[in-house]
């Protein structure tokens, strides 16, 4: 049982940054904007978040700075993709490349420094419960926040008028514009939200996961978050399944290797990707029978004046 508990704790930790980053991207894409800069925004969030936490000694300040840094990065993208109507794929890729370089520069002064990682919740009695105690009542704040975030996003998208308008912009920006909705402003907010989430997801890595900063430490997690958004067919519920499934298979395959079950490790390492793609594709085919991509995703919108 102790091993199962340890595995679940590792899974939650591994899945959380993916879930946070993918939630942000989901909102941006639902408004019709494809931002491929998630990896870049994450790594800048990681550098700034760590720097701020190291200087201030506060994880909370670090997380806020990560969010701010991710948002600022997304504004660069917004200026290009929304303001100047540049191709979104190109500007997103540019943002990632820029972010990787910038984070190295920002983080150069902090490489090799250590901080104390984010504290875990402790409620006397509850956290001490066998098996579920530490899993349910003993996580760090990021884990609880990521779950609240995805529920909030689900509620916003499907239960509020503003969410409906945001989705309308993503499905048909011409109609939304004709109805008098400020398409570009809505997309700007969606992109900024995506940036904030990516920044926080990035900051999670040096603040809670591995409490130090090293250039390139996101190691492709931004791209995985992007892929999760697509395979979850832009639905919050499936995103949760996808993110936790990916984390779970990643950790389980490590344990399977440690236990020496003799399946080639190269295959085991590819399992998280395979399992996630298969499950999410099966889910979306069973329910909707095809693609549910926002119809205007990735297309440039220039309002007629």
């Amino acid at each position: 049982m102790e091993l199962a508990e340890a595995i679940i704790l590792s899974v939650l930790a591994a899945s959380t940054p993916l879930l946070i980053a993918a939630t942000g991207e989901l909102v941006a894409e639902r408004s019709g904007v494809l931002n491929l800069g998630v990896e870049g925004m994450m790594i800048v969030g990681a550098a700034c978040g760590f720097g701020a936490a190291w200087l201030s000694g506060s994880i909370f300040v670090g997380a806020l700075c990560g969010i701010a840094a991710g948002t600022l990065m997304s504004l660069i993208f917004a200026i290009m993709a929304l303001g100047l109507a540049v191709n979104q794929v190109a500007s997103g890729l540019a943002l990632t490349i820029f972010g990787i370089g910038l984070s190295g520069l920002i983080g150069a002064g902090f490489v090799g420094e250590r901080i104390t990682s984010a504290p875990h919740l402790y409620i006397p009695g509850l956290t001490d419960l066998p098996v579920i105690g530490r899993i349910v009542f003993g996580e760090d704040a990021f884990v609880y926040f990521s779950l609240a975030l995805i529920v909030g996003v689900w509620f916003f998208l499907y239960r509020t008028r503003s969410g409906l308008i945001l989705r309308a912009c993503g499905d048909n920006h011409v109609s939304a514009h004709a109805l008098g909705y400020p398409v570009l402003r809505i997309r700007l907010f969606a992109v900024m939200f995506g940036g904030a989430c990516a920044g926080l997801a990035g900051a999670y890595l040096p603040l809670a996961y591995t409490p130090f900063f090293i250039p390139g430490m996101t190691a492709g997690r931004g791209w995985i978050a992007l892929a999760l958004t697509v395979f979850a067919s832009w639905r919050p519920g499936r995103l949760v399944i996808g993110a936790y499934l990916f984390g779970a298979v990643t950790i389980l395959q490590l344990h399977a290797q440690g236990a020496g079950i003799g399946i080639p490790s190269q295959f085991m390492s590819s399992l998280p990707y395979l399992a996630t793609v298969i499950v999410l594709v099966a889910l979306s085919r069973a329910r909707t029978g095809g693609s549910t991509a926002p119809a205007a995703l990735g297309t440039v919108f220039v309002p007629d004046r």
Partner: protein
Amino acid sequence: MRKRTFLAAATALFLAGSIGSTAWAADKLKVGFIYLGPVGDLGWTYQHELARQALVKEFGDKIETTYLENVPEGPDAERAIEQLVRAGNKLIFTTSFGYMDPTLKVAKKYPNVHFEHCSGYKRDKNMATYSSRWYQGRFIQGQIAAKMSKDGVLGYIGSFPIPEVISGINATMLGAQTVNPNIKVKIIWANTWFDPGKEADAAKALLDQGADVIMQHTDSPAAMQIASERGKPAFGQDSEMIKFGPKVQLTSVMDTWAPYYISRVKAELDGTWKSEDTWGGLDTKMFQMAPYTNMPDDVKKMAEETQAAITGGKLQPFKCPVVDQDGKTVPCEGGDHLSDKQILSMNFYVKGVDDKMPGK
């Protein structure tokens, strides 16, 4: 197609942007470096960068150095190397295994430029190779690990199942068996050289499964930091990682390329540069052991004695007979120990490794 063009253009821009800025002068020897990771990775690339800085200190304004960091292995590397040639570099160090073929290709094209490739096996008239006998350090670590482990189970994080990593695992086990013949090892392949999150997860998995000493052959200090959190002893990799595990780091195999780089640049300046294969052990100081810390005095004494014996050539980690995990004795091609060729192409586990090699 369009996407690909963007990517290529973006990569080119990125490469151009990452050239270390130096002013060109006509009569200085220009020395170029190709790095796999960022110079601040605190591991593999960082150690090469330290050696480059040592060069600058040693030769002052007689040479001029340039480096390109974050150069992916593969076709991009060829462009990056050629870029260094065109910029007038006469001696170029390419510092990762995956640059082997790209380096060879460029070397054939520019016979007047000298190349130094790290950890490969292909050479040419103007392309030398160099690497270190890290397995010697692993043997010492194995002995220490066996002494320090309470339950006799070591946790080993591998990157890729290539001969260098496998000979490391084997040397560790042979060393450990001299202390505890029943020592066990759990191996997890991360299938990456660098992903702090995944390395940390692998370390957690090993500890959760009962390993009580952590060793790694991946590049970030993540595993050391997890060991530190759990209060379990661990070994660093490539560089000094004591900062991430002040109470748990036992030692670390540190790459110290400076002496080699200095001798090669000196040869180039004197006009005596020759294409050679250098495989330096503890005696050449191409790698060194970080101070032995967090261990009882008798363990430290044992480690120091083993180190002295290996340095003096009295102890061969792969001393014959070497028995593989199926119980077959490996042919002894190097006199009383395995030959360099056998170590460089090692693809079997020694007896006592209770794990199947990936892909076998």
